[in-house]
């Protein structure tokens, strides 16, 4: 049994990794078929895992309710919502008066999805606007030299990206260098430079490191050097 727990996953990871790596360079139909087989297996495993996930969710909330842990009332709501949505999905219920504008043939399940779930999602997403404001407030407090630089850069970026920035650039004094006229306060150009030069340079540096890391972690997993993801540890 220890073989199936320790060696077998490494053999599978190595074989699958090498096959999929080689497949990338081989453009034949058989190579595509192999990829399809792997993709199908992925879906099959995901299907079984989804059933386990639902059980896990139910177990978590049931335990919370049974042990009366803090916030257990929310678990009642979760379990109730789960039951209602599942039941509405299984049964082609249709309740008069619960019809949407154009979706009357979709039944209760889709009605709840479209008119309850989607607005709640949108609400959650819209909270982001307020969080950006509070995060910006925290980040722009000039307590250190780095934070001050961040504050100044952010201010320049903001001015460069709004119409008033362009207005200032037009109204400010212009000077001529080698026949070209430049504004003394050209915020849009400065904002573009910040984005395209220092920002792009840093992002490319990070990206380069990331890509090498992707390859390195793939090699570590394929050759069984990294095994923590199997739960086996070192």
């Amino acid at each position, binding site marked *: 049994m220890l073989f199936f727990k320790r060696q077998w996953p490494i053999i599978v990871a190595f074989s699958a990794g090498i096959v999929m790596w080689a497949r990338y360079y081989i453009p034949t139909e058989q190579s595509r078929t192999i990829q399809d087989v792997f993709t199908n297996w992925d879906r099959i495993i995901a299907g079984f895992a989804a059933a386990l996930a639902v059980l896990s969710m139910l177990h978590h909330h049931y335990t919370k309710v049974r042990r009366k842990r803090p916030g257990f009332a929310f678990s009642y709501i979760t379990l109730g919502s789960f039951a209602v949505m599942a039941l509405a999905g299984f049964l082609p219920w249709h309740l008069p008066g619960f019809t949407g504008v154009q979706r009357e043939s979709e039944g209760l399940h889709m009605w709840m999805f479209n008119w309850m779930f989607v607005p709640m999602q949108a609400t959650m997403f819209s909270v982001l606007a307020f969080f950006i404001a509070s995060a910006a407030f925290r980040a722009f407090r000039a307590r250190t030299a780095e934070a001050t630089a961040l504050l100044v850069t952010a201010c320049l970026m903001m001015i460069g990206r709004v119409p008033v920035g362009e207005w200032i650039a037009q109204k400010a004094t212009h000077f001529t260098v080698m026949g070209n006229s430049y504004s003394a306060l050209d915020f849009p150009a400065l904002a573009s430079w910040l984005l395209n030069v220092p920002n792009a340079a840093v992002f490319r540096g990070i990206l380069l*490191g990331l890509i090498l890391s992707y390859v390195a972690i793939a*090699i570590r997993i394929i050759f069984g050097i990294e095994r923590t993801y199997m739960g086996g540890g070192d």
Partner: protein
Amino acid sequence: MRTKWWLVGLSLVFALGLAPPGPQTALALAPYPSEVTVFDIPNDDGTNLGVTWHWFGALEPETKITIEVEVAGDILDQFKLTPSEQQRLDAARSELAQALAPLIPERDAAQQDADAANDALQLGKANKAPDTPELLRDYMRKQSKLDSLNARIEYFRLVFASRTRARGMTKDLDQKSRFFEFLQASLAQSSWLPSNVHDVDPATLDKIKDHPEIFGQKPEHEDWSFAALDKMLATNPAVIAGTYSDKPDQYASTTPRTLDVELQKNHVYNVRMVIQQPEARPIIAELGGAEARVNYFSVRLLNNFVFAVLFAIVILAAVMIARRNPNLFIRRIQGLEAVDEAIGRATEMGKPVLYLCGLDTIASLSTLAAINVLGRVARRVADYDSDLVVPCRDPVVLTVAQEVVREGYVDRGRPDAYREDKIFFVTDDQFAYTAATCGIMMREKPAANFFMGGYYAESLLLAETGAASGAIQIAGTDSLPQLPFFITTCDYTLIGEELFAASAYLSREPMLLGSLKGQDVGKALIMLLILVQSLLFVAEIILKKMGYDVPLDFLKMMVHAL
């Protein structure tokens, strides 16, 4: 294969001769493809041909072209069913027809009923009739019956598909037999079949420069036209015979008017172009021929392959060196140094540690890296006798995370402390997951939050809520657009590659640390290449200014390829 100029000239004369008399054709120079090359497209599975050319003569605004391929009759052999396959197909078809015989009339009647009920419902709604709810119920009932019949028909068709699909075959027997019938009928008419480039405006065709994967980054004649041929159009025998009907047949399927048949591998095709100008006879230009060959290696990925092999060798060599000399220096990563501090703080406060593995699936490398770090964190949590909460978004990640945490506790001799319900599935919906996780942060007030893996728009929602709850926060992600949000709201952020180094860093395992060293060598190599390329560019400019014309293009190209 390059067309000779004299051939172009002859064809031009021929084309003009074919054109009807009249002022337009007599005066205008007929457009003609010149300098034509027909070739097998490299780096593909052998079902593609490429054609490049430039236009000799001016194109009329509404000119359409069709590229045709000449198909030899032996191609039919590839679609001919063996006697056993034919027998299997006949049996499956007969079984399908038997099963569908009572269902199709019933479905047609149900369709009529549902349509009538829908009409009545719409009328009732328009007139605000009092019995609209009853009409709605009637419509739903009839629609439901229709859906059920359609589902049954679909079920039998699926059974048919599974019976006619042989193991390992890409096409099912039904499709193969149709290809055969269509091709046979089309080839009986003409051996030239239209390709996928059919009746198109030549101005909309791609140029050579649009396909660097075939012609390279700086191709010659970059503005010449390019067309990739991968299919031939076969016509339905019923269309040729004039008996075609678009009604569903006894197998509940509609036979199409034409079928796109892939070009077959290792087969030579002659190619010609039919140029149709407005109010003129079509001009036919022979383009040449080529074999659509199977390519077993993508030559365009050669540089990628060489780099991958070299990098793998460097990493493995670094690992071997690390096994002999385990005392490797790795620079201090503050975010990872703080892991112990964060877990210790949680233990002191008697609060749990919250760990998120990101929103990506297990197929994402950032999720795997997050799982690796989770294994290390679980061991520390077990050591400190603290509590670990892991809400998951992906079912597969959940099962892996449960296993990793369980092993972490077992490894530290604390299997009793492991509680499976603390590593749980929330939902796979992005914002529902975010709402639930933010709820946990606000209710349970974890003392330490770890955000590892891939994140999207929810990153700031999670991190800002965590900051508001007063937790010490450590984030690590490869999602570049989310990095600023984490840097702003978290105490420590692992930027990009640091996330992938975290597992090695925390474990101090020499082999893992060795792979980090290998990564550094790779990075140094890339930096060197960037430096060399920059110097080459600068040197070229300086030398040109000094009046020397040194050809550095080859060197630059080599560095670029690497």
